[in-house]
């Protein structure tokens, strides 16, 4: 990890403009008029928004798009030709990625880069350079500290930009990062002593009191507990939590046909959806609403760790912000632990 220089905040848009000639640049840009932020393609002249509001749709959006065409097919007589779709056409760089989102990518890699590898996902991952923005805690909902994520120098980032006074200390971490570093040389100046010091001492203030540990007796003990009834009573099953969650990666596959051709595409899906496990002959192993709510939390806090060794939650807090009932994963975990106190009244 080598510090390669200091960049003034005002030079950022210019640098991104230059890079966008060679690579596709994606950055957090304002969306709509209510201060929302969205990771979108950076066009020259756009204004990057760096600030407390995190993009509602996480970084996974540019590696696992909401809707993605898998292949196109066309039939003549009875010959069918299948042409796979090309995931991306140009190498890309993502600016302003947050620590929690980058950590989430590592968890999704566990699934999509495992044999048999998802080629489209791998191509997007390898051809994208991630420029992380060290963050000191975006909002009251953040609790990445509680799940052991370093929001300053997140693992998996190629370049880290640490905000100091009115600019950034730029540090390259990986080889890909260094290649990008060469493009940034024009806007970089040697960092001064105090700037390097503030960069080193940069700290994050996210909540560390959110406890996702298992209830007494382990999660299997609460499988039939009435507490699931309470946790799922007010939940309307809309699945926003799975949409905005950086680690959720379930998808659905649809076909479409027009004339003698057509296409297959996949789109995001949610375990909260009524028909998520509905089979063609009408059987649904998870028909009740509370079973689906239970599945969402058990998968993140029990099954994923059992298979991949880490809880599938990076503490970004988006689920609580997006949920119409402001129910977050932390609150449900607490509820499951203290269920004894409520259920015996």
């Amino acid at each position: 990890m080598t510090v390669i220089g200091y960049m003034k905040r005002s030079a950022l848009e210019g640098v991104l403009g230059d890079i966008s000639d060679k690579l596709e640049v994606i950055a957090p840009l304002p969306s709509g008029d209510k201060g929302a932020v969205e990771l979108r393609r950076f066009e020259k002249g756009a204004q990057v928004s760096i600030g407390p509001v995190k993009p509602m749709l996480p970084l996974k959006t540019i590696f696992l798009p909401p809707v993605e065409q898998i292949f196109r097919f066309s039939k003549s007589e009875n010959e069918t030709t299948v042409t796979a779709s090309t995931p991306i056409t140009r190498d890309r760089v993502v600016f302003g990625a947050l620590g929690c989102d980058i950590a989430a990518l590592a968890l999704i890699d566990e699934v999509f880069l495992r044999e048999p590898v998802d080629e489209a996902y791998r191509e997007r991952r390898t051809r994208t350079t991630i420029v992380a923005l060290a963050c000191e805690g975006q909002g009251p909902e953040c609790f990445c500290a509680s799940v052991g994520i370093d929001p300053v120098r997140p693992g998996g980032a190629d370049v880290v930009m640490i905000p100091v006074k009115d600019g950034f200390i730029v540090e390259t971490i990986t080889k890909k990062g260094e290649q990008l570093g060469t493009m940034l040389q024009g806007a970089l100046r040697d960092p001064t002593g105090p700037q390097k010091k503030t960069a080193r001492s940069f700290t994050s203030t996210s909540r560390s009191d959110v406890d996702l540990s298992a209830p007494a007796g382990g999660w299997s003990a609460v499988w039939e507990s009435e507490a699931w009834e309470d946790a799922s009573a007010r939940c309307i099953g809309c699945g926003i939590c799975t949409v905005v969650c950086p680690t959720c990666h379930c998808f659905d596959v649809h076909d479409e046909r027009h004339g003698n051709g057509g296409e297959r595409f996949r789109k995001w899906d949610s375990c909260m959806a009524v028909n998520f496990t509905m089979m063609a002959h009408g059987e649904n192993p998870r028909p009740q609403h509370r079973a689906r709510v239970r599945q969402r939390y058990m998968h993140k806090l029990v099954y994923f760790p059992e298979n991949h060794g880490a809880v599938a939650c990076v503490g970004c807090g988006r689920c609580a912000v997006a949920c119409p009932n402001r129910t977050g994963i932390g609150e449900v975990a607490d509820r499951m632990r203290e269920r004894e106190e409520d259920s015996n009244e």
Partner: protein
Amino acid sequence: MNELMMIPLIARIRSIREVTFDTLMFEVAIEKDGKEVPFSYLPGQFAELSVFGVGESPISITSTCTRPGLVEFAVREVGLVTEAMHNMRPGDNMGIRGPLGNGFPVDEMKGKDILFIAGGIGLAPLRGLINYVLDNRSDFGAVDIIYGARAPNLLCFDWEFDTWKAAPDTRVHLTIDAPAAGWNGSVGFVPAIVKELALPPGNRLAVACGPPIMIKYVLEDLAAAGYRDEDVITTLEMKMKCGVGKCGRCNIGAKYICVDGPVFRLSELKTIPSEY
């Protein structure tokens, strides 16, 4: 692009044979870039068959890997994709991704007596294994097949029964749920026949596949007859989309039925919640 993940190869239908009024057996040849390619698999594995423009569905491979030639799939018409398959004609082509899933633990089954228990279309995944066992008859002990269906015309693969009966040390017990004209075999539900025969566990493995209600009672009877959980093997039917453990549909407990299964020992099934 690897064919397992999302891009299917072409499966050209060579012949279609009627198994029952709502089930057809497709004999397909696998083609890649227009040329036929070999397709190797293990008994109990399945493949994702797709009808281009309609969708995909997981179908167990019912042919036997020890017999060269075409791959066979038995498809019952239950939904949109299977209905579209039933409207296909020889010469048409489907898409195929596979082989997928773990298949039966054939090596551990060597030297053991085997009790096959099947109901209705559940015989499809077992047929491949039965023929595999009969092709390597000496590697295995006694073979008993209990197979039942609602009515005589719903018994699948009836053209195999005679060859099975003729095989050495192999007994076939057919049954139907309710008496029907022209049927003089035994009448009764499959679990009842299992209890009636009461084959001792001893050196025997039980392999069961069929509708969930039948499996529930069969597992109870086997446990009552003293079969250890590791000696009972079954194959699960679950909602699947990708078939390669990524889309999350078939996730029960820490297991992904499409990758960690669909074949499970009863001992493994007891470690995951009963959501299947």
